[in-house]
């Protein structure tokens, strides 16, 4: 229900319908109402024109083909201006829509007609369109897609942990590759470059670079020249596409009878004529230019979680300040422009045809993270009036897009923190917080220039990106370490997959006579998954450049332009390869290890045989065993017993990452950010020794297992602090959810409490933090399913109580009171 996992925005658009909220926001609400809660459509034009062009360019260098295909799209795709909008640029028809990337999944488009029926994130498509896709588009891609290539290349021993079918479409959810249903990892452009220079100037740079090439060099003429040609074409393509919007705006203006709207359309026409070719002159220019870039990026490729928005309060501020001074823009008008961008953004859906991809991103999730706050490249506080405006907009118009991310550092102004706290209290889960004091030193330690590290942008879910330094683009491997626990218990097997030996045969678990024997077996299973994951990722990295190019992303990247290489190349000289592997089930594994160590080998309350039997039976008839296991120390309670195990497991991962990262020059570091995937990954894992029942969700990110944290939110933070090997650098982000009841954060004192928690979190150098202020729905859900909500803390004047410890009568009392407060 109110399960705001990771950066998944709440599914229901939380918009109050009262007249008061609409007042002054009629325009954005009108746009929102036109698509709100409708089933999205698939627009096939991008796929159609992209394919049309690709058919004609076979044999040419891939980056050139891609640029030509995008030029063809720019020429042919229908252009739209959303009625009432002040920003032009869509990648498809009106309403909520998704577009197709047949280069990823064209070979199995036969399932398109069934997308309206699927349970999670359904899509509509007309039979005529299905027909075009199936007859014109799909056949070309058969045998050419990356996922077919990867599926074919996957050695049998890796396949056994990767796929559950012959097609490579169904994940085994053990060692999952995530590269085959997206063209790239999350990314952020250097938007400032576009706003300051415009594409004419960027094109001039590409032409100059081309002219400087040695025209007689076989290498340069074959390797570099086509790249720069592609850069010139892509600049022309986006400028052409933009100008077509200018024409459309003028056409619409001619027909428009309303004078005000007519003037708006003419102003748009003027902007689209100049943007993004020219430097932005004012705030409205800047918004339009940025929007064209992000929309055309979506036509270019399916970057996971979509291209993020970067440090908007930084690169937009000069225009904002100038216009406010000149009196040509009010803060309200600036907010309106931004909010139009949000409702335009909300209409583009990150469509996954691949069933596994869909499992990972349930609920039409997409994250065009907007970064605000933090430090400047000089190391000063970067907060400005625009930073506050973003927070204000989020409070007044709490749409689920964009995902708002605030960078926090030790000298973040108190006012900014207080406004963040006020926004968090609003209860929609925004903003999330990323810690400069963790990211910047860590990125510097991994080799980033200090000023670039200081200038990072939040990208996608919890990642940080340096748009001109980083060059790693492959979707990364997700490792389900809860299966390593299961394989330890079942001699390399998983109940879900029967007699198949998925892992290693480490022996009959009921025979383990000491903790050391058990732990050694676990480590073998754990290590085996790491080995397979790293091998799999290497294959992924080597195959992808044959299939993907991203000329737009490349033309905006300093290193790509310098080296004449597309961003999708496996290595670009000077590039920083920062990436990760995902650890699924951290709390599940740690608590299971703790339970076995404590209850079997130290206190001897249980035998291994009892535990093995109990989990085989999913604890049915072994309820007492389950409770004994559950009474062991758990991660997330600031308990040194469990946290020490957690730190050891983190160390094992980092040590492995260090060894093979060195070999490859790629930082594949341990990350704890499951998005929504701890649910599907849990579905293949039978009961675990921490008392978790079969097929239920795994623990989420670096948060505690569900209901296992009973010492409050501060203890969860401390456990994260104590379980991280801070002296090592092969670590990436950790996602941390903190749930609070509205009562805890009530009033001015409550705001201060959130500020205090954020300050301490910053002191502890934890990577990420987000708050869930629990509402009535959650309390009701907690009544239905108290087991899952055991750790829900509710505050009553003077003292606090665990909700599920209270009698039904009193629970209702609190629920009614909460409702009362909300009124």
């Amino acid at each position: 229900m109110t399960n705001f996992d990771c950066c998944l925005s709440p599914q229901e658009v939380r918009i109050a319908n009262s007249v008061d909220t609409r007042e002054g926001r009629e325009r954005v609400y009108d746009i929102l109402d036109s698509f709100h809660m409708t089933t999205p459509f698939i627009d096939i034009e991008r796929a159609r024109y992209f394919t049309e062009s690709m058919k004609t360019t076979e044999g040419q260098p891939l980056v050139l083909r891609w640029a030509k295909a995008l030029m063809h799209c720019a020429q042919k795709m229908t252009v739209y201006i959303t009625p009432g909008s002040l920003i032009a640029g869509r990648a498809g028809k009106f309403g909520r829509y998704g577009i197709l990337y047949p280069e990823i999944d064209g070979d199995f488009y036969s399932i398109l007609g069934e997308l309206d029926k699927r349970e999670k994130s359904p899509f509509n498509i007309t039979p005529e369109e299905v027909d075009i896709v199936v007859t014109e588009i799909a056949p070309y891609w058969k045998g050419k897609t990356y996922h077919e290539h990867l599926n074919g290349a996957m050695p049998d021993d890796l396949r056994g942990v990767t796929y559950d079918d012959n097609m490579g479409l169904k994940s085994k959810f053990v060692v999952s590759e995530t590269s085959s249903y997206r063209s790239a990892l999350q990314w952020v452009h250097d938007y400032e470059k576009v706003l300051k220079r415009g594409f004419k100037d960027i094109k001039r740079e590409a032409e100059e670079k081309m002219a400087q090439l040695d025209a007689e060099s076989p290498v340069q003429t074959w390797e570099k020249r086509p790249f720069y040609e592609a850069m010139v074409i892509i600049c022309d393509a986006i400028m052409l596409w933009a100008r077509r919007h200018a024409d459309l705006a003028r056409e619409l203006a001619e027909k428009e009878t309303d004078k005000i709207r007519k003037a708006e359309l003419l102003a748009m026409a003027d902007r689209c004529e100049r943007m993004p070719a020219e430097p932005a002159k004012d705030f409205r220019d800047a918004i339009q230019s940025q929007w064209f870039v992000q929309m055309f990026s979506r036509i270019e490729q399916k970057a996971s979680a979509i291209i993020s928005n970067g440090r908007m309060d930084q690169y937009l501020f000069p225009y904002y300040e100038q216009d406010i001074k000149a009196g040509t823009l009010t803060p309200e008008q600036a907010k309106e422009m931004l909010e139009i961008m949000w409702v335009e953004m909300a209409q583009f859906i990150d469509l996954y045809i691949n069933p596994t991809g869909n499992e990972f991103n349930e609920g039409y999730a997409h994250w065009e993270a907007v970064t605000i706050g933090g430090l400047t490249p000089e190391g000063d506080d970067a907060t400005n009036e625009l930073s506050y405006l973003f927070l204000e907009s989020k409070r007044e118009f709490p749409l689920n897009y964009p995902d708002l991310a605030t960078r926090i550092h030790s000298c973040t102004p108190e006012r900014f923190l207080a406004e963040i706290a006020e926004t968090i209290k609003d209860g929609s889960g925004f903003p999330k917080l990323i810690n400069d004091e963790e990211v910047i030193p860590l990125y510097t330690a991994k080799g980033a220039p200090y000023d670039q590290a200081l200038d990072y942008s939040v990208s996608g879910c919890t990642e940080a990106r340096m748009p001109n330094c980083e060059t790693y683009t492959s979707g990364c491997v997700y490792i389900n370490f809860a299966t390593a626990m299961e394989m330890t218990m079942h001699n390399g097997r998983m109940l879900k997959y029967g007699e198949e030996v998925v892992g290693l045969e480490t022996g009959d678990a009921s025979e383990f006579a000491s903790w050391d024997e058990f732990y050694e077996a676990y480590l073998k299973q754990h290590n085996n998954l790491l080995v397979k994951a790293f091998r799999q990722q290497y294959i992924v990295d080597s195959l992808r450049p044959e299939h993907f190019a991203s000329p737009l992303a490349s033309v905006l990247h300093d290193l790509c332009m310098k080296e004449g290489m597309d961003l999708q190349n496996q290595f670009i000289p000077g590039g920083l390869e920062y990436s990760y592997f995902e650890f699924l089930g951290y709390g599940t594994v740690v608590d299971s290890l703790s339970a076995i160590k404590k209850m079997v080998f130290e206190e001897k309350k249980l035998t291994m045989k009892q535990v093995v039997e109990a989990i085989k039976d999913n604890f049915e008839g072994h309820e007492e065993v389950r409770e004994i296991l559950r009474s062991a120390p758990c991660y997330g309670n600031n308990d040194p017993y469990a946290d020490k195990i957690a730190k050891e497991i983190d160390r094992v991962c980092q040590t492995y990452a260090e060894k093979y990262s060195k070999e490859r020059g790629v930082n594949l570091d341990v990350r704890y950010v499951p998005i929504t995937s701890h649910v599907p990954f849990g579905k293949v894992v039978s009961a675990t020794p921490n008392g978790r029942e079969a097929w239920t969700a795994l623990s989420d990110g670096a948060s505690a297992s569900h209901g296992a944290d009973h010492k409050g939110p501060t203890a969860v933070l401390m456990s994260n602090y104590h379980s991280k090997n801070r002296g090592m650098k092969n670590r990436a982000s950790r996602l941390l959810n903190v749930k609070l009841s509205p009562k805890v954060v009530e009033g001015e004192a409550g705001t201060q409490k959130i500020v205090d928690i954020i300050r301490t979190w910053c002191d502890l150098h934890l990577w990420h933090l987000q708050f869930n202020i629990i509402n009535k729905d959650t309390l009701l859900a907690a009544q239905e399913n108290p087991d899952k909500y055991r750790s829900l803390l509710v505050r009553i004047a003077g003292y606090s109580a665990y909700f599920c410890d209270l009698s039904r009568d009193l629970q209702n009392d609190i629920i009614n009171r909460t409702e009362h407060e909300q009124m």
Partner: protein
Amino acid sequence: MSNPNEGIIFNIQNFSVHDGAGIRTIVFMKGCPLRCAWCSNPESQLMKPQLAFNPMKCLGTEKCTSCIRNCPEGAISASENGVIAMDPEKCVRCHTCADNCAPGALNVYGKNMAVRDVIDEVEKEAAFYSRSGGGMTLSGGEALSQPEFAVALLREARRRRIKTAMETCGYARYEDLKAACGYLNELIIDIKAFNDDVHKKGTGVSNSRILENFKQLVKDFPELPILVRTPVIPEFNDNAEEIKKIIDFIPVQGNITYELLPYHRMGQPKYEYLGMEFPYADKQLDENIMKELRPLERAANENFKKA
């Protein structure tokens, strides 16, 4: 308790945000000289460990017989419909049953702890205190039921630069109160009723000692922030007349603030777990009362602020 370095505690609760400044950890000490009919912490009253049983957590004797198997006296048996039955005649309060009850249905309120262990536990969250101005709050029960232990805890906390607060009902020897206050950053003291007959009826004791202590305290500690609290209890002090009398009794000093706490029934389940009668089970505070009383609280605080 003869050893001042050890005492009996029934809970250490992190992330407490309403009893003193900032983010705090509350150390709940056992034992209380009062017997307030509305007490929300009935497990705090006796200064000895107490066995409690929460049937909602019990798996039932069909699924679990741990307590029955482990009781050395054979005092626990299975009754019909899977519920456990305890024979109070046979029970010797060894609490082996609770030690072996994994779901925590059988649970002992109260355990002996050394000063050092308590403060070690409190200090684990010190990162939050320094940012929020929080620290440790001694509560209960009545913290001064174990005066030497309480003072030792406060002294050790201060030695480790942890800020301290204490909640007290004021019913203690003045020397003890004074000794504790010497180590406090903040004191929270209850004045529950001014009328002594009312006080006796509701709490079981006279308020004369409390009021005398309070008078002396505000003289001796003119700089110590003192929060005076009155729980507003139905059929006890839930009227403006009584509250006014309390406020009038408080000297107008700048170091004092006043707070009304509306009655709640959150302690009810614990009465059931302990097998105790809850005299206030059916009583509720009339919502309108607080609307009437809040302005008195506000006026009092404005008055104190001016001093």
